[in-house]
């Protein structure tokens, strides 16, 4: 019944998929009204929801209510063109961890995906050698 390009039918997988597109999360125009979870019809990686400005309001930091990413944040490492994030440089790395010791998410630091992966590895190494804390004391 359904042809491949008319996703109005209920998805066979996850009939109880949350209709998050209707909860005002800023789904971009042109997204199908039916938003199933990732991997619904094959090929839609994150669902249409985060396609907008990239910051979901419920996940926003304590700064404000509906706070998307403020401005176009650039990846510091891409700008400086670094090829290797050194785990020994705790001063550089410390600006990417919370004061509690946890790694800051990309949307707060503006790091690109590749550098975020390298950054996490470096942070964890530094934590292991006591250059950075695992969990800062309260």
């Amino acid at each position, binding site marked *: 019944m359904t042809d491949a390009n008319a996703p109005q039918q209920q998805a066979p997988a996850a009939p109880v998929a949350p209709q998050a597109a209707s909860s005002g999360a800023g789904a971009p125009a042109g997204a199908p009204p039916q938003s199933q979870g990732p991997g619904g019809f094959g090929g839609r990686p994150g669902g249409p929801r985060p396609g907008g400005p990239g910051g979901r309001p419920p996940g926003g930091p304590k700064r404000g209510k509906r706070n998307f990413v403020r401005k176009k944040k650039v990846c510091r*490492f891409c700008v*400086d*063109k*670094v*090829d*290797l*994030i*050194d*785990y*020994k*440089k*705790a001063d*550089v790395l410390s600006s990417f961890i919370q004061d509690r010791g946890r790694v800051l998410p990309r949307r707060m630091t503006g790091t690109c995906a590749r550098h975020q992966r390298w950054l996490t590895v470096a942070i964890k*190494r530094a*934590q*292991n*050698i*006591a*250059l*950075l*804390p*695992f*969990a800062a004391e309260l």
Partner: protein
Amino acid sequence: MEERQYDLIFILRPDTPESEIDKVISTLDHAATEKGAKIEKTEKWGRKRMAYRVQRLREGFYVYMVVRSSNGEVVKELERRLKVSDPVIKYLTVRLDEELKRQEKFKRHREKRAARRPKKTVPASVPGQAGEQAAAPVA
């Protein structure tokens, strides 16, 4: 076989006398040369405050070494020595050659791309040696 490079960092108790520290370093040095490795660099970072308490201590004496070897067994041996050594309270070995290779690759790609772009002053015959393209910094 290709040469591997390892970063070895270890921390000793802060009250360890200098002679002890040197003894540990030379033990590692001998162990490494026995296995056919060479220690390229040894840096003593001195006493540093640690981010958390290790064995109830807040400070430690950091030593950093770069080890080059074509044989992976040397790491096990060095770590074994560190483990049994009393003043050493923490150690970490990181294998770095793949990352350094990747860094080199990126640098080369970037320089190639920069050389391909029409530049005013740089002669096109020199591949990748663009004058204003500084080497990529390590963050």
